[in-house]
């Protein structure tokens, strides 16, 4: 039971300090005038959310609703200001694709580098290498440094590594927007395959209504940091569009 992935957020609030341009030139006048130097922004307000193993959850909301902040909290790179979060299971984030790449290194070297960043060990990467290369469909370019790749090719490689990382929680943030339709289809099929394994969690952020409707059974709608809807796909977009 303890091996199954699980995400639980209770009363999570995340505040950011907006400091504007943090230069001395601006600090000094604001100190003299007595204005508060930093402005506070609440990205998430008392969010309660539980995601069980086997669920595929779409996160929907307008820009600035707190979707990415929520992803970062789940990925464990940022922490709640108040409230509790517990995440069980290894996370493979597909946020800001290619983050773990180095553009001077070639495709093969980047498979190892990015795999390691996603928490894979050497043996694991080696055993998955062929699958990664095959899935990416760009084998003949892999000996070139990554800077010679097109954006779509980098995305293909990044996606291939991430879905073969054998993580338990996949965070997907608007990534399908890049590749061509053929590759998008291939990705959705792969994600469906992951979904069917039933011991995974997929959290999916997208503005693409069709993709969300096709792919998720449950949708969480965020609005200015609050969860305003959590349930079936059908009603989710009514709520979303009313906002």
């Amino acid at each position, binding site marked *: 039971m303890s091996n199954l992935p699980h995400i639980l957020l209770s009363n999570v609030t995340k505040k950011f300090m907006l400091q504007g341009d943090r230069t001395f030139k601006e600090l000094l006048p604001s100190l003299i005038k007595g204005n508060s130097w930093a402005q506070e922004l609440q990205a998430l307000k008392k969010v309660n959310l539980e995601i069980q193993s086997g669920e595929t959850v779409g996160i929907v909301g307008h820009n600035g609703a707190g979707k990415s902040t929520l992803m970062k909290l789940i990925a464990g790179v940022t922490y709640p200001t108040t409230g509790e979060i517990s995440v069980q299971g290894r996370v493979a984030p597909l946020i800001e694709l290619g*983050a773990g790449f180095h553009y001077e290194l070639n495709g093969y070297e980047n498979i190892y580098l990015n795999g390691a960043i996603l928490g894979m060990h050497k043996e694991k990467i080696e055993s998955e290498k062929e699958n990664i290369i095959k899935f990416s469909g760009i084998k003949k370019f892999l000996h070139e440094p990554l800077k010679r790749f097109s954006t779509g090719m980098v995305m293909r490689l990044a996606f291939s590594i991430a879905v073969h990382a054998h993580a338990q929680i996949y965070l997907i943030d608007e990534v399908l927007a890049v590749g061509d339709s053929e590759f998008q289809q291939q990705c959705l099929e792969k994600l469906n395959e992951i979904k069917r394994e039933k011991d995974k969690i997929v959290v999916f952020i997208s503005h693409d209504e069709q993709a969300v409707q096709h792919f998720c059974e449950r949708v969480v709608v965020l609005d200015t940091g609050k969860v305003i809807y959590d349930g079936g796909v059908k009603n989710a977009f009514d709520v979303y569009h009313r906002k």
Partner: protein
Amino acid sequence: MLQTLMLPLVSHKYLLLQLIQREIKARYKQSIIGYFWVILNPLSQMLVYTFVFSIVFKFPTSVPYPLFLFAALLPWTLLQGTITTATNSLVYNDILLKKVAFPREIIPYSVIAAKTIDFVFSSLIFVFLMFLYKVPFLPTTLLFFPLFFVQIILIAGISLCLSAFNLFYRDIQYLTNLVLMIWMYITPVVYPLALVPKEFLQLYKLNPMVGIIEGYRAVLFGERFDLDSFLWSAIVSVILFVVGFLIFKRLEKTFADIV
């Protein structure tokens, strides 16, 4: 505490290894002589310093000046290069900080390890010079390793601190360059310690690099080893490391928010 300290070296060993490789491989890509720069850089520095301080100024040294210089210049280059690069390392890896969770100290550690490998390679010139000047390797040369260990601890402490601070205020990287330049001139790298006036000597030796640099020369050339200076360096280094590590770990949780 000890568990947190060792975690990146055990559970994230492969990531650390990959980041070290990236640091080394990527640096000299699209360059013709590539890794050879690691040797060429100190070599050309040596020629300049030898001309200025051995031929123009005629500093009195117990061994030929190029040897005297290299015993200090190579470890100094390691310290300077590591601190400069490590200070920028977190800023440079900002996307990584926002994307994936792992113990953040792996990033500055990978810089330290990569630069240490550079150091080993560039030390080949030193070995070559020892043969060229027919200076024998003494058994005390083995004491180089504890000295080097202390230096790494010192570098790690400073790197952890500065890399974290630099995420908050980029002034740190410019300040670091300035301080490193001053620091080099208050350390006996290009000149012998004997030239420092007696009345300043106590104050001068507060610099932890004095004990380390003079220690290298002592064990390599069979001169008197100043144990007090070395112990002082070791104490300062360990304190700096502990403080640096604690500060780093304290700030770590906010890295993704402020980068």
